[in-house]
């Protein structure tokens, strides 16, 4: 197997939030508690999890919006969280980002064309070059040329998301980070965007990290799936296998939510113990005393974070 394009090793990161109420001071909220992931070139890794699982934090950490407290983020073998500004600019060109909410990712007071061309600005290209590259990406995303002169507030959510994708690919990146790209869209627009993403991947040979709360969306374009709960990846493996035969209890619930139909609690505590230990059907004594180990199964193809599979 080729070497991973993006390798995440034992990544820890936290937010500081005000203590709440009127108390003074801040506390750390651990968003990522030791994430390990490999993303191979030309494949799609789907990251799925509920709200507060740390999936968006993972994207933000890769982008450098959230500083890792521990661990490494290796892109083509370089730890990108420790690069200086100049080297970082080189890497930035190869990692594109499509955010969640289109209305917040495109400046409503700027023309669409200016928004798309923004990543090109620091490069100092000639006007014709910029025009040409805008034309190319707009065509790729089925955006009419007249759209370029419009402002963001004149466009619908689906169109804006296309614009966001156009901006993300204009530097011809190798890796595209997609943070819930369809969660604000209707079903029909979601289908359009997912189809576009699938086509683009083939056309440009892109590598995706797709984050979503909807496992069906993830399964549509993912080669591998990682399931996150409470800042940890609890199961990771080939998409098909995870969908057909989930091993971790949380994955089973994600795949079959109507089977539960009651509120279950996810422990978001600071401990490293299993976050679902309070209700897990497979729980053992060890679960409430020791953090679960990462177990490799299926010829090292699949990882499960659970005591149940240690034997």
């Amino acid at each position, binding site marked *: 197997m080729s070497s991973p394009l993006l390798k995440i090793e034992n990544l820890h990161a936290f937010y500081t939030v005000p203590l709440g109420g009127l108390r003074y001071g801040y506390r750390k909220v651990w968003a990522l508690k030791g994430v390990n992931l490999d993303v191979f070139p030309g494949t799609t890794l789907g990251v799925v999890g509920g709200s507060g699982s740390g999936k968006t934090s993972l994207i933000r950490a890769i982008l450098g919006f959230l500083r890792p407290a521990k661990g490494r983020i290796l892109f083509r073998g370089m730890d990108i969280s420790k690069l200086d500004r100049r080297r*970082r600019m080189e890497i*930035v060109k190869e990692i594109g980002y499509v955010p969640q909410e289109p209305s917040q*990712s495109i*400046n409503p007071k700027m023309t669409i064309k*200016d928004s798309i061309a*923004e*990543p090109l*600005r620091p490069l100092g290209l000639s006007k014709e070059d910029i025009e040409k590259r805008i034309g190319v990406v707009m065509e790729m995303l089925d955006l009419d040329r007249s759209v370029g002169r419009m402002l963001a507030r004149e466009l619908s959510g689906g169109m804006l998301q296309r614009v966001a994708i156009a901006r993300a690919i204009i530097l011809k990146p190798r890796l595209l980070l997609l943070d819930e790209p369809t969660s604000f869209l209707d079903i029909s627009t979601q289908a359009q965007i997912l189809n576009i993403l699938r086509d683009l991947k083939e056309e440009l040979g892109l590598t995706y990290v797709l984050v979503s709360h909807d496992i069906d969306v993830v399964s549509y374009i993912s080669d591998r799936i990682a399931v996150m709960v409470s800042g940890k990846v609890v199961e990771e493996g080939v998409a098909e296998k995870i969908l057909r035969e989930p091993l971790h209890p949380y994955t089973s619930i994600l795949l079959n939510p109507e089977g539960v139909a009651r509120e279950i609690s996810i422990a978001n505590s600071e401990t490293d113990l299993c976050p679902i230990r309070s209700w897990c059907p497979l729980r053992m004594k060890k679960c409430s005393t020791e953090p679960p180990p990462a177990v490799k199964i299926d010829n090292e193809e699949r990882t499960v974070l659970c005591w149940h599979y240690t034997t």
Partner: protein
Amino acid sequence: MSSLPLRSTIEDITSLLTRTWRKRPGFRVSLIIMIVLFTVAALGPYIAPYPRQGLGVEIDVTNALLPPSPKHILGTDSLGRDVLSRVLFALGRGLYQSLVVVAVSLVLGIVVGSFTALAPRSIEAVVSYVIELLLALPSILLAALLAILLGGTATSITVALIVTWFPWYARVSYLQARGLRELDFVRIPLYYGLSRAYVVVKHIGPNILAPMIVEALSDMGSVVLEISSITFLFGIGIGSFEEPDLGMMVANGLRDLVRAPWVFTAPAAILALIAIVFTVFGEAVYEEHHPILRRRWWLWF
């Protein structure tokens, strides 16, 4: 390409103003009065019957405190100067002064506020502290201090007001910009290595300009009142004065309030007119800008 943010702001403001014009009679009346006031202020020095008295370089003590008559339509003050001419000269200065205060404070406030929101944490903390500090300074006392130091009253009042008004705009635009900096359209250009100045000019500025202008428009009335209060107090202290200033004229007229109420009433009425018209104007724009107040709405439950 670069003029676009400004253009969209101008479009926003003009569409807001035309909408307000269409919907609010109070706005129409106040705008018309404002236009009249500004025209009179611009023509004032040319139509004043006694321009030298208006300017204050000439006094005529023999004609002091004359009641209104065809010769002196609004009467004369304690130094025998024609009140109408004085008012005409003072009007222009007063309007100009308040416009300068609001415009300079607004620009300064937006620049300071939006850059602070993007600055490193330490600078952000220091600037926020300084803004809070300036907000605590009483404008009237600051103006008095500056009047002693700088001498000239008009300039010191303008400076004092800018020093105390711009922190407001800085604080408001800082809070707005701080909300914006969490949004992806601000983060992404920073991610791609574009400068903070670029982000402020292209992303922050255009998105806070229109609401800030609305804020400033609704403050115009208060600024006029504050300026006149300060000059009024200075006028109380100063025995005689040359500069035509409405607040000082009111203070001067106060001494003869019972004997010659016209000296007090004419400038006070004009000031009231300006302040009320500005307030009604600003309030109408504010209400029309406000998403909930804009609605034609009444209690339905």
